[in-house]
């Protein structure tokens, strides 16, 4: 499996994601500068965390209009795994590949901490190696991660099984219905606020993130 990790100016979890894919999961993966991402022959693509374009205008807003997104959209439509982590999630929403909005955390502060997450569905490209209703641990680190949508959309996402992960126990950001990750209709495009690449090494606090990335291999 060949995985592209897109680098926008201001991405800062790009090297971390690459390191985990290459060293821990032994996948063929590569960092691609956003302007050079014009080949949709990749098997999967990851939009890493960070502050693309300095969060100018809105988090993810400028990256969502970059030329790289054209290919991301094509891969999404082809049913290939597309994962947006943190700022990557914000980009997928700004690009219209995922619905809803990510607002500033209710506490109005950046929050960096480990969280317990409940897997709401294993029908997604990034949870199919995990059991529904199981709990995993991953850290979050963001300022704008409070998922917001109107009641209709929330109900729609819930009934369609597109709520992928929720915070279990404490809700660290005030996100609606505890939502931490959602998917598109096909389940191949997932946006998540927690950082699986930071939970991929036991010495760093846990390895549950490997199952998130590893799900890509099972998905077809």
């Amino acid at each position, binding site marked *: 499996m060949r995985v592209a990790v897109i680098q926008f*100016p*201001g991405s*800062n*979890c790009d*090297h*971390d994601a690459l*390191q*985990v894919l290459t060293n821990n999961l032994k996948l063929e993966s590569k960092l691609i*500068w956003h302007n050079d991402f014009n080949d949709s022959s990749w098997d999967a693509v990851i939009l890493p*965390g*960070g*502050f693309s*374009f*300095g*969060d*100018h205008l809105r988090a993810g807003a400028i990256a969502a209009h970059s030329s790289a997104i054209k290919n991301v959209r094509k891969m999404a439509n082809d049913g290939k795994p597309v994962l947006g982590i943190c700022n990557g999630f914000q980009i997928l929403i700004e690009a219209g590949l995922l619905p809803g909005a990510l607002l500033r955390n209710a506490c109005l*502060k*950046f*929050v*960096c*901490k480990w969280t317990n997450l409940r897997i709401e569905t294993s029908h997604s490209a990034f949870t199919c190696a995990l059991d529904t209703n199981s709990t995993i641990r991953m*850290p979050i*680190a963001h*300022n704008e991660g409070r998922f917001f949508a109107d009641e209709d959309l929330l109900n729609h996402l819930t009934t369609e099984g597109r709520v992928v992960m929720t915070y279990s126990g404490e809700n660290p950001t005030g996100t609606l219905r505890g939502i931490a990750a959602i998917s598109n209709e096909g389940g191949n495009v997932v946006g998540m606020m927690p*950082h699986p*690449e*930071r939970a*991929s*090494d036991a*010495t*760093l*606090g846990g390895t549950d993130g490997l199952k998130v990335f590893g799900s890509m291999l099972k998905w077809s």
Partner: protein
Amino acid sequence: MLVNHFETILTPEEMQYARQRLNREPNPLEWSMIDAEWNEHCSYKSSRPVLTQLPTSSPRVLIGPGYDSGVVDVGDGYVLTLHIESHNHPSAIDPYGGAATGIGGVIRDILCMGTRPIALMDGLRFGDITKSEHSKWIMKNVVRGIADYGNCIGVPTVAGEVEFDQCFERNCLVDVACLGLGRKSDLLLAQATHPGDSIYLIGGSTGRDGIHGATFASKRLAADAEGERSAVQIPDPFTKKLIIEATLEANRAKIIRGCKDLGGGGLATGLSEIADKGNTGVEVYLEKIPIREVDMNSIEVLISESQERMLCIVRAGSDALLEGIMRKYEVTAARIGKVISTGVVTVLQFGNTIASLPTSFLANAPIINRKSRNPKVTKDELHIKPPTDMVKALLELIASPSIASKEWIFRQYDHEVGINTIAKPGEADAAVLKLPNGKFAAIKLDGNSSFCNLDPYLGSASVLAECCRNIVAVGAEPIAMLDHCQFGDPNDEEIFWSFSMAVKGMADFARAIALPCVGGKVSFYNQDEENGKAIKSSPIAVVLGLIENTEHITRIRFNEDGETIIMVGKTMAELGGSEYYHTHDLTGTIPPALDFELERRTQSAVLECIRRGFVTACHDCSKGGIGVALVEMALSGDKGASVDLAKMPSDEMSDDELLFSESNSRFILTTRKPNVVLEILSKEMVPGEAIGIVGGDSLEIVMRRNKLDCKLDILRDAYTNTLERVLYH
């Protein structure tokens, strides 16, 4: 635009010296360049003779003080770089921008060496937030400034230290230290050694922000300091992130000969320093410097401290390659000059020379040998009646802002980006980071203005000793240090005496444990112009440690029921300068004693116990004494303990002295092999005693006259929620 007016803080003697050396009257632009380089902030003209006392070499030290960062060899072709900066004056006026640009500055110092910044630490000192709304405002915005900047550039803020004292009400201290990682073969030095090389200015454009910033830092804060806001630079972390990546890519391409951070003193300082270090000269074309405002005059362009700018010395013939890399990252790069063989710094404007000064003259301010005098510090005697309710006394102490959990701060910092942070904030006495060669770096920053106020020599030696204990407690061997001296106006003989004694204290202890100092910083004039009050002496130490084996990494948390708690070191009745006194508005008379040799033996014995695998948790016992250390270990592991202090090695003393005394050379550790640990300690002639057992959901401590028993939930509420409660009420 040429100007005939300039502002200077040069003394009449310095101006006379300049005229004599040049044998002419410098023009206003030249005066401004001299002023920018010769201020205290850039030239260390008062501090240099004192700082030479510090030991600076060891087999690991590749580059010591004098460059942008110190460089330490950690083996297998890898190096760590280390530097500290303060942004005290700017943060007092604009806490958000001041703190943020402080990070921006220290990051560039690491980058200049050709290394990637991998971790940040902050040392913060504010006024009494329980009484002052102003200090709350300063603190909230300083923390937000550090968070916004550090988080955006993707460098984790992994450790820090905070102190609250009324003396910092109008002069907060904001220190940021940075650790960098690189390959020895990629190291760069900020020196222009090869005539013909190009000089590029990369990054942001030059504006009017930060004009006279270094000069501003070299005088006292005036009552109307608000008017100095133009001396504070504007932060732009996004541009900084691009500069980091672009510079490192250009360095990997081997086209850069050297790099120089443009901080205090702006271009004037940066240019003269690279030329002086390289024994060359530089020629600069003023009109090629990208400016943000059209009507800036030549002085403003040369001394502006606009952020996010670096000088790159590019190998002759590599201009196009450099420009290509900068274009990819959309970073502005302007070829503003070249290296020349004549030893002068020359500024040209459309071909006309508008300033020309000898390099070595400009870069080396005349040293000032200042007078010093032993001060009379107001000290008060003990007036506390030993408390009978020890639970209440303990709860009050752990809820004092200087002791209470700093979680409110470190939750706002991304401390995990980079996926190297093994021991995270709050978990251990120092941060532990994974290195690519399989080893681990431990870093910590410490200060103690209460001790240093009572006795700058003993206080600063204790600061360094404590910082080393923190490094040892995580299982690391201290390998390098930084000193950072923060004092009032050095023209005051008593303040200069305190500064000299503080440096001597650190230097003597560093020598005693053979720890090299690889860099540092001096910040004077932390003094209020209006009321004349200086801050308490606040020297800071940063210590870097190395861990060879993942098994050695040790945290503070109680792990398993039944493990034995061992007190290492002897407790004495030493409450002078303690946090316990501070909460009772007392200072005391003398800080705890420090036996250099005992401290060295204690650290080495504890490290041996850890390395041999006998230690399951370890915590330095300092601020707040045994009481606070036990609470922190219990809360971190969510396990209680029952402890008997009556039999512990100590002199005759009251129970509050026993529980809260801040004697040096002490650790608390847990083990499953108490006899072996006690044996190792006794072999090294280090006092040690088993004092209790881990277990239960409360902390029980038997003292000589009283005992206390407190549920962990109650301790947790007082310890964890205090900062948030104080800041929002």
